[in-house]
């Protein structure tokens, strides 16, 4: 089969593009090397929708961040993704640096933010809205349009919506080689993509491969790019610490990024991080003692009394940092019909709706595709029974008793939600897949209680033997076989 567009990578950029392109009568597929969407950079970041004052004026980052922020309310509503504008404070702890706050304001104006969406606060004003700021804080820049979102659910929702509108997704499908088919001069250009699961052919490629985007770009272009995995580590704190700050509190920016932040998450936890460490390994998502110590120490400079004993997990993510420090989005000059979407580091999540829109418009112009009449732009998320009244909840359990059985006690997730996560389009296939969709296992006991129970549901629903149930696909098997008592028995 010849596809019109193949998107490499099912992160938030790839899925935003897939969803936008699903408006047209095009054959589209997404190739993803992992077992699920949202397994790379999108999985581990600050989960912030940035206001757009930070990026250099005139850069792609600035334009798409501001546009993405504007679009987020609508897309979150359409796709049933939790999103809240909690506002951000960039705090200054050095009286000599107070002028830097004005620079942020001025850059915000230059980037197109509304003047009334930003404010410079003195210490007292900042403390009035954020009482736990550190004693050294002398002032703050307040960006009211900054928000918090669930990156998993945004990514998953975009993918599901693209899928119901006809986009194919192929998981566990790692791209190994991309080359142009030999065509007669003037003939149509066709790309051949060799993967671990066979060959795919397509007219257009969108390279949304995160930290691997340079690898694929460099396969087709003589103008090389270089992406450095820039690792950032985080600590996630229990919900009991979630109210420690109500705004996203940033340090004043430095040259390695926006610095360590302290923020509530959309689900009510507290998140601190990231640091920035350039590494070579594109799979190097391990934390180190030094990096965890670094973020804890830096977070404490801006916010006091962070209850670090409430940490429930720590993790690291890789930003896809391109040497030029800007998004590279567009057709590769010496590789027609190969569209880069590379260097998508922060504010990539914030920009994702705009990245989707931008690439759609670009391909619309080139391909002149026909619009679908029956495109569905909305999607319903997994029902959260906590949002129901007592009576509604009982009605739900009467209709479907699975909603009466709690599987994850920390996050109050029912079997009904987990079944929905598995059965819906592009459903969960692993413990982490269930976790990202329902939060089962994401709470304070970190799946100690629910993992055997979720495994049992995956076993039953997917018909998988226990030995094949994984944490996150691949070789991440959770058990290796039966105990002696049971060995030799049939399933």
């Amino acid at each position, binding site marked *: 089969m010849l596809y019109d567009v193949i998107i490499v990578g099912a992160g938030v950029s790839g899925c935003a593009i897939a969803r936008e392109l699903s408006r047209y009568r095009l054959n589209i597929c997404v190739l993803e090397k992992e077992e699920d969407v949202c397994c790379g950079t999108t999985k581990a970041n600050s989960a912030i929708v940035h206001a757009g004052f930070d990026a250099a004026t005139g850069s792609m980052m600035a334009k798409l961040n501001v546009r993405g922020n504007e679009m987020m309310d609508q897309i979150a509503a359409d796709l049933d993704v939790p999103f809240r504008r909690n506002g951000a404070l960039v705090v200054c702890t050095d009286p000599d640096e107070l002028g830097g706050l004005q620079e942020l304001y001025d850059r915000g104006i230059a980037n197109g933010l509304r003047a009334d969406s930003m404010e410079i606060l003195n210490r007292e004003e900042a403390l009035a809205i954020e009482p736990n700021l550190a004693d050294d804080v002398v002032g703050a820049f307040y960006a009211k349009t900054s928000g918090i979102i669930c990156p998993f659910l945004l990514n998953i929702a975009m993918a599901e919506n693209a899928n119901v509108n006809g986009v194919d997704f192929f998981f566990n499908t790692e791209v190994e080689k991309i080359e142009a088919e030999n065509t007669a001069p003037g003939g149509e250009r066709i790309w051949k993509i060799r993967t671990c699961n066979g060959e795919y052919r397509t007219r257009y490629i969108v390279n949304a491969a995160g930290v691997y985007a340079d690898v694929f770009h460099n396969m087709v272009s003589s103008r090389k790019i270089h992406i450095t995995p820039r690792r950032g580590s985080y600590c996630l704190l229990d919900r009991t610490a979630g109210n420690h700050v109500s705004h996203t509190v940033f340090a004043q920016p430095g040259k390695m990024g926006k610095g360590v932040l302290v923020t509530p998450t959309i689900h009510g936890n507290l998140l601190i991080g990231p640091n920035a460490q350039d590494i070579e390994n594109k799979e190097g998502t391990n934390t180190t003692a030094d990096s965890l110590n670094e973020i804890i120490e830096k977070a404490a400079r801006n916010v006091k009394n962070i209850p670090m004993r409430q940490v429930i997990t720590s993790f690291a993510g890789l930003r896809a940092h391109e040497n030029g420090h800007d998004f590279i989005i567009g057709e590769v000059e010496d590789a027609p019909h190969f569209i880069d979407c590379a260097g998508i580091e922060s504010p990539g999540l914030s920009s994702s709706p705009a990245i989707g829109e931008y690439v759609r418009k670009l391909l619309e112009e080139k391909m002149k595709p026909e619009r679908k009449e029956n495109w569905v732009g909305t999607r319903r998320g997994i029902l959260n029974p906590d949002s129901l009244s*007592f009576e509604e909840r*009982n009605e739900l359990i009467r209709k479907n008793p699975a909603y009466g*059985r709690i599987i994850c006690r920390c996050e109050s997730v029912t079997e009904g939600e987990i079944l929905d996560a598995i059965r819906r389009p592009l459903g969960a296939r692993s413990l982490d897949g269930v976790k990202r969709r329902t939060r089962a296992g994401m709470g304070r*006991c970190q799946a*100690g209680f629910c993992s055997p129970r979720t*495994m049992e549901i995956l076993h039953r629903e997917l018909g998988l033997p226990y030995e094949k149930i994984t944490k996150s*696909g691949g070789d991440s098997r*959770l058990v*290796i076989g039966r105990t002696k008592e049971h060995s030799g028995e049939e399933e």
Partner: protein
Amino acid sequence: METNEMMSYDIVIVGGGPAGLAAAIAARKSGTERILILERDKELGGILNQCIHNGFGLHTFKEELTGPEYADRFIQQVYEMGIEYRLDTMVMDISADKVVTAMNRSDGMFRIRAGAVILAMGCRERPRGALNIPGYRPAGIYSAGTAQRLVNIEGYMPGREVVILGSGDIGLIMARRMTLEGATVKVVAELMPYSGGLKRNIVQCLDDFDIPLKLSHTVVDIEGKDRVKAVTIARVGKDMKPIPGTEERYTCDTLLLSTGLIPENELSAGCGVEMNPVTKGPFVNEIMETNIPGVFACGNVLHVHDLVDYVSEEAGKAGEAAARYVQSGCTEASRERAPIRLTATGGVRYTVPSTIHTDRMDDLLTVRFRVGAVYRQAYVSVYFDDERVQHQKKKIMAPGEMEQIILQKKKLLEKPDLHTITIKIEEDDASDAIKSSSDGKAISSANETSGAADGAAHRQTM
């Protein structure tokens, strides 16, 4: 079910493990009829059901039982007494006025008005994240209790080559269990300079199988993107920080954590019960009553125990007290004077109870506590205000061993102006106290981060 057709029970017990069962039986024996146990699992017995090793019940039944056998002794009494219980039922909320909201598949969500509530939810294991262990986050990292469930209840093996962090009793028990199932347990690393487990378990679960126990060691790296491939441990210094150059790498596919237990008190906190930051359980008085009259707590939700026998004993007391409370018309018992406060200091981390109303106490009252370090040939001293009234020499005391003293009611009544009873550890010059640091503060903060002391407390209840 509408609010206006709310069920009502004299006593609602949250949790059908050893604490909940003993509380229910005692309450019934004290004459209260309308008792309901709410249990979230599919059978009564709680964590005992997965503790298939023996060693339970020596105090209570004077014989050595397995966990399920110990639980069954209580479950049978519950059946015989016709005490009501609901299984697969999760309590979602307890309000300050004792309305319990619960949910299951067949009844949906329902509310129960309770005369008294007994909190018996048990505890949970400290996860990897709470320790901030660096490295990758692959499959194959389990808390020891989760692995115990997989092996003993579900019948599956988590892995073949195992490293264990933490020498709490569940970790030790699982070292033996995994070995008997054909796995190789390569090492048990313990952050503290002493094991958190019972000496007996170290001998029977580690020494007998030639499994090395490395004290003052912790995990500094976990390798493996998909599944655990190797774990690196290192020696820690007095500051509990890893010492560079002491790293040892073990190839393995599994890392088990036995690093501490945390009372499961989200429901308690939700209804306004005051918490002790040391135990992570409620403050209770001499009858196991929290600051909310008619709300009682017992078992590992109150403080993590070594011995299930003590859980049963304390729970029995809570059950009797709850029965008295509802029989007296759910009013606060008369309190002739302000309660006496118990203060834990000088090496004593906490006491249960933390207050005593002398008019309500039994003739003899057991006060349980834990110490914050290993003490040899030291004294447990009890002060009535400034006067030392007990000074008892102990051969050895360790964080993993719950200690106790007995107070006599008549002695307390002799002191009508008594405000504070202080329990502390006193060492004479010759005493040989092994502590990880001479600075008491460092020890307690180390305990806090490692949870080793809590972890030790698991012993036979799990």
